[in-house]
């Protein structure tokens, strides 16, 4: 084998080994590297109460209620399978609304009850002008992993 070909084989082998190692690492990290728990995960993994975690899902339609103090809100976060009731005091991002994605940071105070310290709106991959958006309600078909 010529030296040139030897180097080529070596370089390709190294590349394959590298990519393989990364793919293995990635799949092992799949759960740890996730940015938030979905409501179903939280039930499945028995997330302990009081631990700071992120909870992500869709804000269930018709679930958003504002407390009399004006800044505290209650809403339900759902992923279609499980639902968690969340409570937050403070100003929410503009894109936070019913039927839209949300990532809340906080902790579980009781099974199925979540106290959020921070609210982030999760935008989805759909972009359209206002006149195409129908009645103006934001609708996300699925919670993509």
């Amino acid at each position, binding site marked *: 084998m010529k030296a*040139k070909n030897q*180097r*080529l084989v070596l*370089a390709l082998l*190294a*590349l394959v080994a*590298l*990519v393989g*190692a*990364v*793919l293995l690492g*990635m*799949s092992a*990290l*799949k759960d740890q*590297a*996730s*940015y*938030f728990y*979905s409501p179903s995960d939280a039930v499945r993994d028995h997330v302990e109460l009081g631990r700071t975690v992120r909870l*992500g899902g869709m804000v269930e339609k018709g679930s958003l209620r504002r407390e009399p103090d004006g800044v505290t809100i209650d809403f339900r976060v759902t992923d279609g399978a499980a639902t968690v009731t969340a409570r937050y005091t403070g100003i*929410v*991002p*503009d*894109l*936070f609304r019913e039927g*839209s994605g949300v*990532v809340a940071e906080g902790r579980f105070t009781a099974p199925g009850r979540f106290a959020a310290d*921070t*609210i*982030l*709106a*999760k*935008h*989805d*991959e*759909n*972009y*359209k*002008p*206002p*006149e*195409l*958006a129908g009645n*103006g309600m*934001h609708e996300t078909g699925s919670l*993509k*992993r």
Partner: protein
Amino acid sequence: MHIFANPVRFLQLARPLTGWCGWIGAVLVVAGLGAGLFLTPPDYLQGETVRIMYLHVPSAWLGMAGWGGIAVASIMELVWRHPLAGIAARAVALPGAVFTGICLATGSIWGRPTWGTWWEWDGRLTSMLVLLFVYIAYIALAEAEADRGGQGRIAAIFGIVGVVNLPIIHFSVLWWRTLHQGESIGITGSSIAGSILWPLPVALVGFTLLFVSIVLMRMRAMLARQKVEARLRRMGTEP
């Protein structure tokens, strides 16, 4: 590719290409960004902030494509000892790093009104930040090696190793739950409405041509410097 092992032949092609790519690229960038600023409708949800996409997406693409180019050039350098490959890789590094920085900055500016945060350590954002650091490390390594009269082999190995970050960036939004949204444009189509989408490919091609022009310019400058240094050495005076 071996035609260009002769720098004279490469320069014959590179000289006119620099100008053509640069000017056409600049026109397309102005057209794409102008259309994105003034002609497209705002997004129904994000409002006007959607327009940052016309800068954000091309810079993300060039940041990643730049490293892809470094990796290919590094393989060519290690395997075929192509004389221009190392120069090409080093010429790509700086503009690649700049576009990665632009991508991170524009993303952050978009994230504040949309998500409600400047920065979050989610999979996509973190892996893109890692790419910026990898670029900076590559530039430092290549310079250090050149200073010591090395042949660029260590930088080339680093260029190949760094490529593992590219699939991580690309698949981060598919493998893991991230705050960053999934892919809007896939093989099967786009979930961006046509009236918002159309300036994006214009800007994308424009920035890419501009990038090619900058890389060619830097390669020519590097070749010219090599020539000067060689001539000085022949004259017996170290540069």
